[in-house]
């Protein structure tokens, strides 16, 4: 079907387009960018800024800029839409509008972003890459994708994966939740941008109508951006004091006398459970027995029943790693839970497992730690021999 794209320059919204289908019932799409809207407001207010693609690299008055960005409302968007419906040739007449046959705007896709421009872009890039590295080796390649500027097929050589930090590759994390996506990427070599792309408001139990839902949808986007940032902070700085780790590894009793079973480090089932939880840390939404169980079974590599999942959810709750949402069987990780899951998984995957493998009788000959342990063993033996000789001589 033929569609007309009306590319318009609006004094408030900048460059935008309105697409109208030429066939009944004349579907309409409108696309604009909130950053462009903010730039137009800055121009009108006479405030200087430096653009970073569609965002901002610098601004003479950052506080005023943030106020402007927060002031984009449903009423302003509705006024923009109504104005251009009047200005453009439209398939439905004024009489049709008066009879109620008018186009109503609803939110089809909304992106809410948080951009942090670095004073030292090199450190910023190093940070983003370390975040990606951490997420890759926590066993979640299904949710982490590197965005290439070309199509990658089955026949594409796998060497593309080795070019992560080279020219033409944008390091990025994409976390999917139903139809929506939470992204983190390095923007134009100067800033880190976190972006919540809401592709279907129904994913979050909301409706799409512009007037009633705009504020809630924007608030939702901001909340998940902050949540991702917070979880990244926890995952990068997840050091835990020894007494906290020790308390989680011991069976304890609650005030009401209930027993809270231990979460023993290196126990196969506990590690599978924590690895599964560390994958869920960034996902917006609640955890349930049904959603978490297949993930634990995957890490465990064998059957894991619903009853076992219930038992584990109960001990996580009693240890303060999770809270149950009132009136439901859904759970949410606490900050301690997020920290413990990531800390334990990192410790096990990066230190404990390779460390233990170095202690077995025939480790890999190239493993430096194994060689060092061998040397240490020889030195200790020599020290013991020396000590025995000394005592015998006395």
């Amino acid at each position, binding site marked *: 079907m033929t569609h007309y794209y009306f590319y318009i*320059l609006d004094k408030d919204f900048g460059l935008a387009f309105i697409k109208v289908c030429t066939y009944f019932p004349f579907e309409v799409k409108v696309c604009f960018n909130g950053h462009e809207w903010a730039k137009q407001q800055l121009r009108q207010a006479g405030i200087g800024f430096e653009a970073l693609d569609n965002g901002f690299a610098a601004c003479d008055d950052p506080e005023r800029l943030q106020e402007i960005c927060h002031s984009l409302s449903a009423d302003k968007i509705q006024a923009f839409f109504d104005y251009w419906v009047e200005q453009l*040739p439209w398939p439905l007449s004024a009489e049709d509008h008066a009879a109620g046959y008018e186009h109503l705007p609803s939110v089809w896709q909304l992106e809410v972003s948080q951009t*942090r*421009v670095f*004073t030292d872009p090199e450190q910023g890039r190093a940070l983003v890459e370390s975040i990606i590295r951490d997420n890759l080796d926590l066993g979640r390649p299904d949710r982490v994708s590197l965005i290439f500027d070309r199509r990658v097929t089955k026949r594409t050589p796998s060497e593309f994966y080795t070019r992560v930090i080279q020219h033409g590759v944008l390091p990025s994390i994409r976390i999917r939740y139903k139809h929506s996506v939470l992204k983190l990427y390095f923007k134009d070599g100067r800033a880190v941008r976190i972006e919540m792309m809401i592709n279907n408001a129904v994913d979050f139990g909301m409706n799409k109508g512009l007037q009633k839902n705009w504020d809630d949808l924007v608030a939702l986007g901001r909340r998940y951006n902050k949540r991702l940032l917070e979880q990244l*902070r926890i995952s990068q700085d997840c050091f835990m004091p020894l007494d906290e780790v020790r308390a989680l590894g011991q069976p304890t009793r609650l005030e009401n006398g209930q027993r809270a079973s231990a979460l023993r480090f290196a126990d196969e089932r506990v590690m599978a459970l924590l690895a599964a939880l560390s994958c869920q840390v960034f996902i917006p939404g609640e955890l349930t027995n049904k959603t978490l169980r297949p993930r634990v079974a995957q890490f465990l590599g064998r059957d894991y029943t619903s009853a076992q999942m219930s038992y584990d959810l109960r001990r996580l709750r009693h240890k303060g790693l999770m809270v149950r949402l009132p009136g439901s069987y859904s759970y949410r990780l606490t900050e301690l839970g997020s920290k413990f899951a990531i800390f334990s998984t990192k410790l096990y995957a990066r230190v404990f497992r390779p460390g233990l493998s170095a202690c077995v009788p025939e480790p890999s000959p190239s493993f430096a730690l194994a060689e060092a342990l061998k040397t240490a063993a020889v030195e200790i033996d020599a020290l013991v021999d020396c000590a025995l000789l000394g005592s015998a001589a006395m």
Partner: protein
Amino acid sequence: MLTVKKVLRDKVALDIECVDRVYLNGYVKYLQMPGGVVNFIRDQKHWPIPSPQMMKNLSQAFREGVEQFAADQGIPLTSFKKGEVKEETAKEYLAQFGGESGVVLIGKAQETALGYRARRVDRGKV
């Protein structure tokens, strides 16, 4: 050691939270169901039979209206080719656009869309 906390606290020149790209869908409330379409044709357009011919007439009138609008206002009307980056083309026209506000470009494209299909049901025939 480089940590998220340190870099985001000490190495950030500007921190801005803003709505980025927004797509709105414009829909006509009373034309979402076939019954509403029949009412529109009969009651609003005063056609005794809910014929798809009326939809064709509306489409034709709209197309002619757009072409007339482009000719009257001196707005470039172009057909987008398959795979063409429409935004880039629009930016080229924007660079030549003189005013503060107005239609920069009208582009035509062939795309899939949801629509209604009518069929004739003859009643009373054996």
